[in-house]
């Protein structure tokens, strides 16, 4: 079982944290700090397995990590998972992110934290590996995103209105249509 998935950058700033076991908030932050501390000390040519820190569990737990450019992807697993298999899983996850975001970089993870969570949800569920086929995962995520888009997404402003305005052939198109200033009270959309 996977106990936790942590993604943080070279300075220890968390980019995604997902725990599959209950830990109090402050313990969670402590775990992140401790993991970063352990992992950042490692040279690049040593093995990718570490005995886990004291906080996240006893002797049964291992940290399996991979370092990609500025990010560390750390999976904390117990003995029921194959270590080499998890390494491959991390690779699959990163390649999926790459496909979903087109040449993924750290900024993508920063600004689309929720989307990364949704992608992760299709790969790992409840601490267990759900799907490892990249195309399958990407396909499902795409479909769900499309569903979201058709409802209007987060902005909650009428997306159709926005797209309508965007399509008007104005001689000078403002770069950013900042709807935030306008006080529009939009009634909630009726369900399909």
């Amino acid at each position, binding site marked *: 079982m996977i106990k936790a998935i942590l993604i943080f950058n070279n300075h220890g700033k968390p980019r995604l944290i997902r725990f599959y076991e209950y830990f109090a908030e402050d313990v969670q932050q402590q775990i992140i700090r401790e993991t970063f501390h352990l992992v950042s000390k490692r040279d690049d040519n040593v*093995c990718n397995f570490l005995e886990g820190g004291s906080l996240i569990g006893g002797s049964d737990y291992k940290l399996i990590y991979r370092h990609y450019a500025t990010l560390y992807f750390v999976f904390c697993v117990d003995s029921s998972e194959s270590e080499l298999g998890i390494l491959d899983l991390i690779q699959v996850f990163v390649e999926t992110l790459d496909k979903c975001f087109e040449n993924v970089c750290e900024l993508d993870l920063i600004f689309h934290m929720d989307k990364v969570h949704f992608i992760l949800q299709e790969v790992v*569920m409840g601490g267990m590996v759900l799907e490892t086929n990249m*195309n399958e995962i990407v396909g499902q995520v795409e479909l*769900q995103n499309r*569903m979201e888009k058709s409802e209007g997404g987060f902005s909650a402003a009428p997306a159709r209105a926005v797209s309508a305005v965007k399509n008007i052939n104005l001689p000078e198109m403002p770069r950013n249509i900042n709807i935030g200033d306008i006080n529009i009270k939009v009634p909630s959309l009726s369900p399909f």
Partner: protein
Amino acid sequence: MPAPIRLRELIRTIRTARTQAEEREMIQKECAAIRSSFREEDNTYRCRNVAKLLYMHMLGYPAHFGQLECLKLIASQKFTDKRIGYLGAMLLLDERQDVHLLMTNCIKNDLNHSTQYVQGLALCTLGCMGSSEMCRDLAGEVEKLLKTSNSYLRKKAALCAVHVIRKVPELMEMFLPATKNLLSEKNHGVLHTSVVLLTEMCERSPDMLLHFRKVWILVPQLVRILKNLIMSGYSPEHDVSGISDPFLQVRILRLLRILGRSDDDSSEAMNDILAQVATNTETSKNVGNAILYETVLTIMDIKSESGLRVLAINILGRFLLNNDKNIRYVALTSLLKTVQTDHNAVQRHRSTIVDCLKDLDVSIKRRAMELSFALVNGNNIRGMMKELLYFLDSCDPEFKADCASGVFLAAEKYAPSKRWHIDTIMRVLTTAGSYVRDDSVPNLIQLITNSVEMHAYTVQRLYKALLDDISQQPLVQVSSWCIGEYGDLLVSGQCEEEEPIQVTEDEVLDVLEGLLVSNLSTPVTRGYSLTAIMKLSTRFSSVNRIKKVVSIYGSSIDVELQQRAVEYNALFKKYDHMRPALLERMPIMEKTASNGPTEIVQTNGETEPSVPDTKHPPLVTQPANQANDLLDLLGGNDVVPVIQTTLPTKPASAGGELLDLLGDLSLSSGPAPAPSVPISQPPFLLDGLSSQPLFNDISAAIPPMTAYSKNGLKIEFTFERANPNPNIAVITIHATNTTEADMTEFVFQAAVPKTFQLQLLSPSSNMVPALNQGSVTQVIRVLNPQKQQLRMRVKLTYTHKGSPVQDLAEVNNFPPQSWQ
């Protein structure tokens, strides 16, 4: 109220913060805005606010006020809302909050939703954080979804079922019929999760395991699937670096391992496929190695034929030579698991393993060290020890303690000669002395005492080491003890093994006094050296100097030192006639190593300073974890974890009560009689190794006796003799209760006359059930070196029918065979 800013805006703003304080300020401002927005019950922007809240939660800021909002989002009709709502529930909620139960109804509805993605979300959330109540309520829905033809939902339902089974094991049977058809799916995702579900069921319930083996005959089915995967050729859908769905292969191999374990038929059925996988898998990429690794583990775990096992170990040997560190690490780990069963095969790779000790990688070094200790045997001890000592010199501090204990253990078991043993120990003490565990000091002292012919050599070497360096406390303690005991040999220059050194009495006393005043010495060490100086008063001729030192320390601030000095002073003044007898050479100490758990000794009167001994009980808990790791290595499959048996009451207070008990059987702590053989604490590390029963010799010859029978409580004594020491009688008390009410808080205490020593182990329970339905047993060990008639006074306390009862009794009717 202006529309709340978007998540992207918030992130951008937070990133511009230059200090932690600035960031906190921004976040607090935003939290306030979010809170007021929540209060307004604004439906349109709720999902945006919760998304922002989740981001802030990730950074470490409190976000609990969003929990209810997540629930409102889940209840909404929009997919967007549900998506964020469920994510928020998974991140912010857990079964400890009562709020989570409100989700149950929403999830139930969503499990039956028309859109598969909503159903998927509900399954995901239930599978991540569903509590046992929720699982019980919704298990039926999950089971229904397990039978659907939609593969997207089916695989999620399978993992959700795993979670349900983990939370509520009784529901396992419910999923059984639905699981049957899972393996005939074509979709790999479903196959994968089904194998996970089957694995979980097998691991949880041995009945289920048998069912799968015999009734469903799973093994051929799995073998077939695996075969298809390997033989199918290139399939772009599932290909990872040229191998078809390695994740599924690994999962199936793991399930095969569980099915084949200790079952001949199943193991036979999978022999072929395992051989096939082992030989055909390509090893150039990590995926191939992952599969091979899993195959090797499976081969080693099931009852495979020997050819297959050799193949497996050879694969591991190849792994060890691989350039990739991960592979080497993984190989070392597996070899560690197989070293007990296939010892000889692993021995062949010993030199490679020893080379790994020099690797730069910390994890590999640790594995190699553990494996090296496992491989040490009588033949290779000298060579291995050389390598291991070299490793001890150069390794990181975190390894030193474990390595030192390992060296001691190995040396103890396989030492080719006493001199070699002592040399090795000295080497460890001088190189890693400060990392050596405290309980090794008494062990070493015992070892040295027992090698009578090496005394002169030992004391000489220790003296030389002491001249070089007095900072490593264990070394200093052992050295000062030896000098105290064998100082006469040192001064007379009697060493045969090496060139004797010329030392005068004054030089020796200088060194010992130096220890007393040095800042580097701990109080324990000071105690050792003071006692050593005292002992030398009978071995050296310059008694005046010693008298002076002892009287100076009579006013030391350290209470322990002061007490010792005062008592030794008294020896000089009032009991000078007893001094030679008291301070003569210690006899050979017996090792009571073959008995199981460590016990706390309650001795009546002691000669040796009690400080090193009483340090044992609090210490044994900490080394237990490290010791257990080593024990797992060296002791094989029948290692008994070392159990701490402590008396329910603290020894000190119990001692006090016993003193009250004894009265005329006086317990004085004055100048003790001639040094009797102390029952030393059995060397802690060795205890768990021999899992022999506590009592080696149940002699039926000694009849049991009734020690006490009053008010319905009957206590019977049965006797055994502990084999190694005929002076020890082991008595088991059986307490039974003939009344109709139970006797609770039952405590049995005993005291014996001064010439005996008594140990009480912990009782089986403290409740004596009524009407002879059961009994409480407790073990007493009595040391009777002078073969006097055994007498015992017992004190019983218990609660009967609500009122406390206390009774004292004397037991005099011991059968003669128990103490002769």
